[in-house]
């Protein structure tokens, strides 16, 4: 299958989450993905985009950033690029997912899930921008 690339411009609004999920589903459609692969990628992008909106842009509307999707065989790579102040979401301390109910705090859980669900996750500050690269190898199509 030939590589395919799609650039999605986004604004700093949570309204973008379902729109992005739809775009991801459409982009992955040629792979006939299983529900877990699609869910994993949509979740990782929601968490990353939410981080950009809340931490990068302080929840303020009107900022724009991009997600680039790349498809190479059954590997999907997503590159988020934003011009917010430097912020590495992957540097958050690990959460304790085995703490009892009363002590459970949801902070950091999104990044924890991104790391668990992606085959690779990397952050770099490049040319005054935050660049987060996420990739997942989709399972082979069921026969």
């Amino acid at each position, binding site marked *: 299958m030939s590589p395919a690339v799609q650039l999605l411009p986004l604004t700093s609004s949570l309204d973008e989450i379902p729109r992005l*999920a739809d775009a991801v589903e459409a982009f992955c459609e040629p792979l006939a993905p299983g*529900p877990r692969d699609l*869910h994993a990628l949509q979740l990782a992008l929601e968490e990353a985009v*939410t981080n950009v909106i809340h931490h990068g842009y302080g929840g303020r509307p009107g900022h724009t950033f991009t997600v680039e999707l790349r498809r190479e065989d059954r590997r999907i790579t997503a590159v988020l690029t934003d011009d917010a102040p430097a912020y590495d979401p992957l540097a958050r301390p690990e959460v304790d*997912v085995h703490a009892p109910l009363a002590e459970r705090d*949801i902070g950091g*859980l*999104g990044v924890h*899930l991104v790391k*668990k669900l992606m085959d690779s996750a990397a952050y770099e500050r490049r040319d005054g921008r935050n660049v987060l690269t996420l990739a997942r190898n989709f399972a082979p199509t069921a026969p």
Partner: protein
Amino acid sequence: MEINASTQNDITVLALQGRLDGLASPQLEQRLDALVAAGTRKVVLDCAALTYVSSAGLRVFLGGAKKLKSAGGRAAFAALTPAVHEVFELSGFLEVLAVHPSAAAAAASLA
């Protein structure tokens, strides 16, 4: 996200349908808060038709379970789809939340 509520004796069943993402999760949070404020203490969250949950949805699930517990009640989760089950597992939620194979089993656990 659609939420369909039904009651069986003193148990409220919320059947969740669609995607519980960061945009939709406040809707469920308000619904759970309203139930607890109105005196409901036993809630089944039927996830059979829940196709997606992110950390924003997990936060509402956890918060709802905590609020019910502190009010002397309980939440029970039912019928997770494989993708949602995986997220519960990776988050450690299978250890702290009551998860049942069906809404009927979840309701029976609260009776």
